[in-house]
């Protein structure tokens, strides 16, 4: 038995794929061998099989979503769909009298051609398998990839679909995700909010620290533990720079970002703590002497007196 299929059959199937030859012209005149009973049986398989596959796919997806996770539900639903579709196609063809051996051989030849043409797709599919196995994120997580931030809608075999926070749809190929740095913003239940604050050099850093910690204490959604931190960051050009780090739950992060910065501003106003604008001191001649200023009117009077 030859390892290779009949070349004429391969050529015929390839021609069918290329839509150059009608299916009815396949060697062996298969259509002539199909009787009414076979046709009916095949038709019934398709008519019953297609809805059954859709039903099983949806049922599996719902079951796995409710019992395991949305991610697993999505994947198992698709697996059931593709496996069912492949099984239906094969059994229908066998029922119709097609011999699968030459077709599989032809598929090998076609596969090589398609393989070269679909390197990117295959790469995406393999990357998708890694994403599903590794699970750096799941459906409903909010992730950041490059400049794009959004909620994961689906993790498919070829790509991941996101809904951005301003409600745009973004499709990212799986290969890109595997190669890129992905930040999962909602993976952990608590997040830290970093607020960078500059205060004037005349302020007492210890007092500023106490005021900031008190602001965190009185904000109900700022977590008391992990405790808020105030870190002296730098002696900057125009200010003492502090890092005010407060923890909250991932759901309250945005609310805390708004509320605590407003509270810091109001509290600084109450306490008379200055948030300085960038400023620069100019000296002429000596750094210890003030810049000399003469009033123009005085100059005029002096010149008139002369």
């Amino acid at each position, binding site marked *: 038995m030859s390892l290779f299929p009949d070349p004429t059959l391969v050529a015929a199937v390839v021609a069918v794929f290329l839509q150059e030859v009608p299916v009815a012209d396949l060697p062996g005149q298969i259509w002539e061998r199909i009787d009414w009973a076979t046709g009916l049986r095949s038709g019934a398989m398709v008519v019953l099989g297609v809805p059954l596959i859709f039903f099983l796919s949806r049922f599996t997806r719902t079951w796995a979503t409710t019992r395991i996770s949305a991610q697993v539900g999505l994947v198992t639903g698709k697996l059931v769909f593709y496996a069912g579709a492949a099984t239906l196609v094969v059994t229908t063809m066998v029922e119709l009298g097609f011999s699968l051996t030459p077709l599989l051989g032809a598929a090998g030849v076609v596969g090589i051609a398609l393989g070269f043409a679909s390197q990117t797709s295959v790469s995406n599919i393999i990357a998708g398998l890694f994403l599903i196995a590794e699970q750096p994120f799941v459906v409903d997580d909010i992730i950041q990839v490059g400049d794009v931030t959004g909620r994961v809608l689906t993790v498919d075999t070829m790509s991941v679909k996101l809904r951005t926070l301003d409600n745009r749809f973004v499709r990212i190929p799986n290969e890109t995700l595997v190669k890129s740095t992905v930040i999962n913003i909602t993976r*952990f239940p608590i997040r830290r909010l970093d607020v960078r604050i500059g205060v004037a050099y005349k302020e007492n850093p210890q007092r500023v620290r106490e005021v900031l910690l008190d602001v965190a204490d*009185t904000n*109900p959604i700022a977590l008391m*533990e992990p405790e808020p931190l105030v870190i002296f960051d730098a002696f900057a050009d125009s200010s003492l720079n502090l890092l005010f780090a407060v923890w909250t*739950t991932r759901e309250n992060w945005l609310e805390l970002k708004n509320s605590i910065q407003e509270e810091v501003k109001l509290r600084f106003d109450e306490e008379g703590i200055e948030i300085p604008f960038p400023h620069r001191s100019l000296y002429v001649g000596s750094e210890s002497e003030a810049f000399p200023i003469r009033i123009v009117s005085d100059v005029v009077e002096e010149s008139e007196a002369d």
Partner: protein
Amino acid sequence: MSAGTWGGLALGVGESAVYRLGELSLRLRRRHEEVWMHAGHEVSTPIETASVSIGQSDEAAGDVSSEAWIRWAVPEGEDLELQPVLPDRPVVVSPEQPFFLPPEGRARVFVRIPLFVKVQTSGEATEASTLEEFPSVVLSDTWWGSFTEGDLGYWLETRARREITPELYSPHLAVCPFVLVNRSDQPLPVERFAVRVAYLTLFGRGQAVWTDEVQVRYSGGPEGSEIHYTGKVPEDAGDVAPLATSREPAPRGFNARTFGRLKARMAAL
């Protein structure tokens, strides 16, 4: 209302009421088939006694912008009822002055937990249904667990008293007796401990509100502590009557992490 704090609150159509408990000032209005509610908190001046005043007009409920009210559709035949409940999340207790429990040591401490006010309907023909819950004291959030998993809870600073004194009682604070036993061979630092208040039952008499006793046996190691909720009136409470059942049925005994703290400084940079 029993003892002026809990119980039914009959409001006729057009009547308003102001209910004060702890820092809470709860305004209620009855309007035909509706009940309107508004909760405010005076953080600086907690009130040690509960009070309720009913007026005929909306002015009795105070001048509050219409957006701040919560509206509920309640049939005219149904009255309102105010019930005490413990907070809806675990409470993480932080003693003002942490203490150590020596190996094989035992300590009984009293922690005062702020109550929530549950507003529910009460009708002869219908079952009571909860409308809203309001805290008598606004507690800050805190996290109990690790950086990757845990529970959201309320933060409560307490003196963790070792004896009962008259000033212990307040209508908006439930006294929770805690028995801590250190069965490990190491001193136990009591800096923070978690109280799963959903399992606690409330008892009351006059101004005094008590919960059942919680017994915690610490054995060291990561497996947590063995916790037991007695479900009975504590021996120090005297003659008290049941006020409210627990939010969830208390398990007979279980192990859970009870002591410890989450240090943020390591994660600061």
